[in-house]
């Protein structure tokens, strides 16, 4: 066990577990967001869902866990990448041709990650920080006063350039996930010649659902 988590495989184990946790989180987040489309006029369903997520005790535990998940994933992403650059050596190839041997996404996970991270910061400033520490609009649903998260979100979605940033962020995340999903299983040792292809397909279906699901919402508010 000594040195387990600091070994090359140990570090990747932490990345894959935290990454898979984030993958589950994205689905839950998408589920809540999609309720915006149920009544896109006053957003009662979404406000109820958001209020539930913001107040129930399970989420009070999940929130720090999620922060920890992001923290570990990003921290180890950087540590692993720095070590990998070092291992490549100081003398660089003049010509590298990997177009037939690996995907672009798999070679650029760190840059896709940095991009997603930037997006995450913008996202936290615009929503999370406003809901937690700022003065979000409020509303009454069934006589209960709560944040009008729907108004906060849908107002921003009506600005075209905001939607553009939002959608580009999800495309970067989509490319990250295209490689990340099956890669996490490979890291955990849960892969072989038969499952490789299956995991890639499941991963791509997941990726398309997440990217399409999240982008369809701002587009709806932009168009209608």
């Amino acid at each position, binding site marked *: 066990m000594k040195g*387990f988590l600091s070994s090359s495989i140990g570090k990747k184990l932490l990345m894959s577990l935290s990454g898979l946790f984030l993958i589950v989180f994205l689905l839950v987040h998408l589920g809540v967001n999609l309720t915006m489309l149920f009544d896109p006029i006053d957003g009662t369903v979404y406000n109820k869902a958001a209020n539930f997520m913001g107040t129930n005790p399970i989420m009070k535990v999940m929130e720090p866990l999620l922060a920890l998940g992001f923290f570990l994933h990003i921290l180890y992403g950087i540590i692993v990448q720095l070590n990998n650059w070092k291992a*490549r*050596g*100081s*003398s*660089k*190839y003049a010509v590298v041709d990997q177009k037939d041997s*690996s995907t672009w996404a798999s070679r650029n996970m760190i840059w896709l990650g940095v991009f997603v991270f930037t997006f995450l910061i913008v996202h936290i400033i615009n929503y999370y920080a406003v809901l937690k520490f700022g003065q979000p609009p409020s509303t009454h649903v069934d006589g209960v006063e709560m944040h009008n998260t729907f108004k906060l979100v849908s107002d921003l979605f009506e600005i075209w350039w905001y939607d553009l940033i939002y959608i580009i962020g999800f495309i970067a995340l989509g490319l990250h996930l295209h490689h990340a999903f099956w890669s996490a299983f490979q890291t955990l040792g849960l892969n072989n010649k038969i499952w490789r292809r299956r995991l890639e397909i499941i991963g791509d279906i997941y990726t398309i659902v997440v990217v399409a699901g999240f982008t369809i919402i701002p587009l709806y508010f932009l168009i209608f």
Partner: protein
Amino acid sequence: MSDKNINIKLKVWRQNGPNDAGRFDNYEMNEIPTAASFLEMMDMLNEKLLGEGKEPISFDHDCREGICGACSMFINGRAHGPDNAVTTCQLHMRKFKDGDTITIEPWRAKAFPVIKDLMVDRYSLDLIQQAGGYVSVNTGSAPDANSMPIHKDIAEEAFDAAACIGCGACVATCKNGSAMLFVGAKVSHLALLPQGKIEAKERAQKMLAKMDELGFGSCSNTGACEVECPKEVSISFIARLNREYLVANLKD
């Protein structure tokens, strides 16, 4: 198979020793038969250099039949050049066109220091092997056929892993300079067979610890190694190595 000749330009990495910064030198080669192997073309170039009183280019080679793994060379951005599933000695000039410029570099990785020109020190792979890539007890001479039944699929899989010739193309190709395909192959071919199974877990731990210690990177699962491997060793063996390693550490 055509027997035409081609003219090519070469851009070859020259480095006097481990501490030299190194540089590219340009050469022109005319009338190279396309039936020649890449190493034969290099021999012709060296003959020419010797004739001109210049220092020939150092490069590794031994069997010249694709089984020893000695020949290296990073050709036009790919380990062992443009053909798939071959070593450099099995690469032929028919893979190139008349007028091509071919860039030839040594394997580059922190754990593979250049000795001279295109020759690199791959002793680090031997050190990984010595850290645990063996069976500790004497298993005697070859047993009678079928006295130890092994399922055909398992035997096949072990053989696919054992096909690794330790050439280092996986390390040279890997964007992280990782030896995971090599270690995965060595750990798997022993772990799959009865004699090697007993020490499988500690073998994975020892070999991985050595790999990390020697400055190889970790695996990003890009899969470039299995495409460039002359023996087509699959990255499913990396998954097996991960499995052996994780289980070994969780049991400890």
